[in-house]
């Protein structure tokens, strides 16, 4: 009983954990030499409704990654404009910890193994091809290849390859498995008929900042600097992936967060303009390396899926993370990944797949994103527990809470307590 996961980002890792716990043999195929993908440059957890989701996933029995992230946090309960009780993890040290954890669970990790094609019979995938021609059989597949890049897309829909952490020029471009399976990928839009959206933040080397800013950042976790009035660019807000950070404050100010590096909360910012700001005279981008020019383009390859995260049109393919909808963030990736991994094993066992009820924030966001995208043809909204329309919805329908006992009780009452912990085979 072999589960093959294509893509080793947060959602792929989360899927691997739940599939493994459910009793399957699990393989992750990752094109680069590191797991976590964009998680290597992320860092923001538990802000706003993400707190609720993080606690829900723990209560559902898939809290491993949340626990690791919590333990790697540099700052806890931090507030910045529009966001409350954020936790910031150390992006420079988290990957090896997660990798070791997965290895200890006996999950087989294959790095620098780019999946380029599949073998299909009727509505079933039989196996995958790696770029060197190797063919690998599997019983069920989970696509977590994301929707970002590669270079050609970043060029067509953005400012070109900005040399981000995905490192397509080195390890090869992401290949959409659903597309290879003959399905049509869906694209998000940032404006009418303008496809894709820019990644929403960059990283600056902390060493390149003034001592004053560096100290403040280390101490408080957040630094807010004024953007010179002539450089304020409100238009850029609409281009970002992260609508939760598309607030006026983020255009009028430079907001830096300490994630081990200085996370600059704007999708890109010309270097010469950035260096006009006091304390940033020597600023240097470290992700993307060309953060002064552009950023990666996302949401170009979402799969049509059901609320159990099974891809429509293929019997044994599940998806998670950005592949499964216009989701933003690591918490969202971990939540969808955990469900996809668990359901993949349910499929193998031949039992009914799990759809999380709408009384949970996780179940609700999964169905809400699908509803908006497929039924309302809304290609512009992005879904995250941390802000924008979905956080508003959470507050309106009473899903948002930071009371851990309340969350545990809710999950227990739904009969889902530690359900991802159950061994199925």
């Amino acid at each position, binding site marked *: 009983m*072999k589960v093959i996961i294509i893509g080793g980002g947060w959602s792929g890792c989360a899927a691997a954990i739940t599939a493994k716990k459910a009793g399957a043999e699990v*393989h992750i195929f990752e094109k680069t030499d590191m797991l976590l993908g964009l998680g290597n440059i992320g860092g923001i957890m538990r802000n706003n409704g993400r707190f609720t989701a993080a606690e829900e996933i723990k209560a559902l029995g898939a809290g491993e990654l949340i626990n690791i992230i919590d333990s790697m946090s540099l700052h806890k309960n931090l507030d910045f404009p529009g966001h409350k009780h954020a936790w910031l993890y150390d992006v420079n040290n988290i990957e090896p910890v997660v990798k070791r954890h997965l290895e200890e669970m006996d999950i*087989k990790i*294959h790095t620098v193994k780019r999946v*380029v*094609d599949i*073998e299909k019979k009727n509505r079933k995938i039989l*196996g995958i*091809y790696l*770029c*060197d*021609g*190797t*063919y*690998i*059989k599997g019983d069920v597949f989970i696509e977590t290849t994301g929707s970002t*890049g*590669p*270079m*050609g*897309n970043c*060029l*067509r829909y953005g400012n*070109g*390859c900005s040399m981000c952490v995905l490192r*397509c*020029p080195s390890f*090869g*471009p*992401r*290949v*959409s498995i659903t*597309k*290879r399976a003959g399905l049509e*990928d869906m*694209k998000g839009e940032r404006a009418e008929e303008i*496809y894709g959206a820019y990644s929403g933040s960059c990283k600056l080397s902390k060493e390149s900042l003034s001592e004053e800013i560096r100290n403040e950042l280390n101490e408080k976790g957040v630094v807010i600097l004024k953007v010179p009035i002539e450089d304020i660019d409100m238009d850029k807000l609409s281009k970002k992936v992260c609508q939760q950070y598309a607030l006026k404050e983020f255009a009028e100010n430079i907001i830096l967060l300490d994630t081990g590096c200085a996370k600059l909360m704007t999708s890109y910012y010309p270097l010469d303009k950035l260096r006009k700001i006091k304390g940033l005279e020597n600023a240097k981008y470290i992700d993307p390396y060309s953060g002064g020019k552009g950023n990666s383009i996302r949401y*170009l*390859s979402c799969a049509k899926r059901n609320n159990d995260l099974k891809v429509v049109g293929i019997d044994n393919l599940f998806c998670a993370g950005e592949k499964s909808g216009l989701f933003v963030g690591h918490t969202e990736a971990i939540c969808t990944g955990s469900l996809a991994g668990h359901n993949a094993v349910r499929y193998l066992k031949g039992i009914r797949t799990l759809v999380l009820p709408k009384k949970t924030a996780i179940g609700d966001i999964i169905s809400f994103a699908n509803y908006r995208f497929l039924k309302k043809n809304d290609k512009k909204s992005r879904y995250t527990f941390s802000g924008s329309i979905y956080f508003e919805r959470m507050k309106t329908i009473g899903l948002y809470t930071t009371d851990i006992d309340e969350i545990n009780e809710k999950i227990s009452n739904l009969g889902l307590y530690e359900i991802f912990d159950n061994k199925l085979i």
Partner: protein
Amino acid sequence: MLLPCPCHLAETGDCIICSQLQGATGCDCANWKGVCIYQEYIWNNKKAKSGRKYYKCSIIRKTNFSENTIILTIKAPEILVNNLIYPGSFVFLKNPNTDQFYYFPISIMDADIQNSSLTFAIELKGIKTKKVNELKIQDEILVKGPFWNGVLGLRNINNIKNSVCLTIARGIGQAPLVPVLKKLHKNNNKIISILDKGNYNDNFIYEYLLNYDCEIIHCNTFENGKLTTEFKELLIDILLKNNIKLVHCSAADILNYNVMKIVENVSESLYVVDLNNINEIISKSNPSIKFTCCNNAKMSCGEGICGCCTRKNKDHKLRRMCKMQTDPKYVLEGRRLF
């Protein structure tokens, strides 16, 4: 190399690799080769980069191997020779006194970097080759190149190391075999070589076979349109006894095809689960014995334009054989007749 993507095929949306340069609006990089061709194209102001050149070279050696076969060595620019050292390398040749329709493709038998020379074995079959045969030592000859797609399944030849390989060559097929032997030898493979002199009285690649430490077996492989029993038995015997990992066949397509079928059958019967590898790999798509062969497509321009070499297989994919690398099974089998 001098020949970066994109070529003229990108300008018309006919790139053989990039989905965006085939008219799609998104990336689908299943055949990515290390650069983003779309990016190169945009950065080059949506223009192709300059293509292959025609070189004036001079003939430095010409010997008649048989009545209708010559061995020709020419002095060529270093930059050209350096790019023709790989298995599958070929060029187009032409007598300078003839017009452009007289270019014909010919495999490199040997590219000598030290002396900056190229050696070919040319069978005098038709108008174009006969016109080249009119040239004498020190005469000028026109060369267009470099080209590399003379072998199908190239990646298998490039990837195989420390194994036992079997090569089969018949008649003029010996010439393109030489760079393949060179590569296999360089990667520390043991080579068993079945040689069939075909319609010749003797073989012309002994010198190379000795250089690359090949075990030579002489055998008549083909008679009356069929593989000989002797050859079939020999082939199966070698495959079963020597743990062969790769078979390369350098002959006419009918021979290539029949050998491929035997290799497939034996390979399937030998299918073993390699526990050290990631997992069980099914035999059909990932056989324990790889098969490669020479590319026998007829060519006229070498640039994917003239249409001379295009093949349409039952997978409905149009392959421009002068440029497009593919596994032999897609060329030798499943040809669409309509």
